């Protein structure tokens, strides 16, 4: 394969797997051998991959919470402050009428919560990405699994052997996973 053309910006290798269990085996063996910086590429999310890689839970939930709180505060401020700013009694109702304002508060809670969830996902997943890297195989969005392993140039051979033993079919050096 392209193993001979090791790029100068070498920082790891990517192996392609046809089977999910081969990928899981590779992840486990590499982790046992001390390679902690792994990145799996898969056509579908799978909890077995997540468990094998063991990453902390996604912090997107804090973005959602922050967005919802921000939305609620914005809604309350907008409705209460503007009503107090120009206190015009309509229909004999109090200037600050909380029940109708809650509709606005609710909608803004959802709106900002949703937008910050999107922002949190993009920020944490480092998207959008302009370059998808030469090691990306189009079949990773179809039916193949990939595993990017960060390693030194000197460990290159060891990692390639381990990937191959686990069942990788194609192994290429990677600039960026």
């Amino acid at each position, binding site marked *: 394969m392209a193993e001979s053309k090791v790029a100068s910006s070498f920082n790891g290798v990517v192996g392609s797997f046809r*089977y*999910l*269990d*081969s990928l*899981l*085996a590779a992840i*486990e*063996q590499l982790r046992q051998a001390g390679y902690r910086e792994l*990145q799996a*590429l898969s*056509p*579908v*999310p*799978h*909890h*077995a*991959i*997540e*468990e094998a890689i063991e*990453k902390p839970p*996604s912090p*997107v*939930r804090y973005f*959602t919470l922050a967005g*919802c709180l921000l939305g609620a505060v914005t809604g309350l401020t*907008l*409705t209460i402050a503007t009503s107090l*700013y*120009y206190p015009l009694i*309509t*229909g004999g109702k109090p200037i600050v009428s909380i029940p*109708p*304002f809650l*509709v*606005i508060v*609710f*909608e*803004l809670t*959802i*709106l900002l*919560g*949703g937008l910050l*969830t*999107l922002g949190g*996902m993009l920020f944490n*997943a480092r*998207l*959008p*990405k*302009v370059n998808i*890297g030469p090691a*990306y195989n*189009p*079949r*990773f*969005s*179809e*039916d193949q699994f990939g595993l990017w392993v960060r390693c030194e140039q000197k460990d290159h051979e060891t990692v390639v052997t381990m990937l191959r*033993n*686990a069942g990788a079919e194609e192994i290429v050096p990677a600039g960026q996973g």
Partner: protein
Amino acid sequence: MSSGHVETQQPVHPAHPSMVTGRTFADVNRDVVRTLQFPGNLYFGWMSFVALTLAGGIFAWFMQIYYGMGMSGKRNPQMWAMYITTFVFWIGIGHAGTLISAILYLFRAKWRTSIYRSAEAMTIFAVMTAGLFPMIHLGRMWLPYWLIPYPNQRYLWPAFRSPLLWDVFAISTYFTISAVFFYVGLVPDIAALRDCATGLKRRIYAALALGWQGTDRQWRHYKAAYVFLAALATPLVISVHSVVSWDFAQSVVAGWHSTIFAPYFVAGAIHSGLAMVITLLIPLRRIYRLDAYITQQHLENLAKLIILTGLIVGYAYAVETYIAWYSNNVPEWQRFTYQVTGEYAIPFWIMILFNSLVPLLFFVKRIRTSTPWLLAIAILINIGMWMERFVIIVTGLAHEYDPYSWGPYYPRWVDISITLGSFAWFFLWFLLFIRFLPVISIVEVKEELPPPMRRQNGGE
């Protein structure tokens, strides 16, 4: 090959067998990409028909803008008439899409996977259609930005106590969140399209896919975001039609001023939306030969949901009648008898028949598993639900408290053309959607399939 991980491995097959069977991951990609091939004459025939109808609607709108609102049939006291009827109808259509994409997702109803994408697209386009109507309905349609909450030159802000302003917030939030949810779900699928496209198409898909690679980091944040968006969209969808119903219920008009309006409208919205989903899915499945993905079981499940919403709607009709009588409120009862026996008796009885009685046929398994019956009943429900909004709005306004302000509404060609044009506008977007985007979620269908395993593939 040493792989000692098998003991600790979680069961990879989902608890319920997938409704899509006998397909591999690669098959799913191929089958969905196949739907994006250059379409045949049927597609262009429909597109021309839709474009012509839309042109008629645009022409009618132009006439209304140029010569004034008198071109439509709107006369005092019927200032809401057909435009708000159609607005409420389209907002309602959107609700089933969110039910299928968000609520069923939270309930882990796995059967939604192969139909949710088209249902969600329907939501977006229905809200886009509905959003036109407040503008069409404005006398001075060049001032729609007055809807945006900002102060006038005396620093007077819009009345946040007004249900019409709640509506602005609800609809714009609904559109934004639905669009975000739709797009987030599409990103990995667009990446799959990017990976098998060439040339300009590839560059467009690549830009839309945001450089998605399907790394475990991306999936982790994606899944988290997706579940939160679903959780946010769920109360939102309930709130949107409740707010729309409060446009009516917060007024003192007899027949509108009713506490049952919010749940009644939400159930009606989902009722009409599910019917629209069936109306769209049956031809879609037929034309693209997607029977392996959109199975009879999917349609049957939708039909069962329609039984539920149909019963709620029927219950709401019964409660309205009962309250009109039991309240001993003269205007209320008069309006009710007017509704049942007056000028709009035919739409009223169509509404009762099509929305609450015809769907009961779905109790018969032979009917809910037969495609022609499903399509026929779904179309009847669509008609019935449009009539429901028409009856609520027009009879409510036709028969308010003072007899001197009574007045019926008769649509003119402008109202009718604009309403037909709105259907064309909706179908135009839907046709563009099925031409350029995957109608079935590649990722979610694959998630339901058993992943390729070395150990279990031995027998094949």
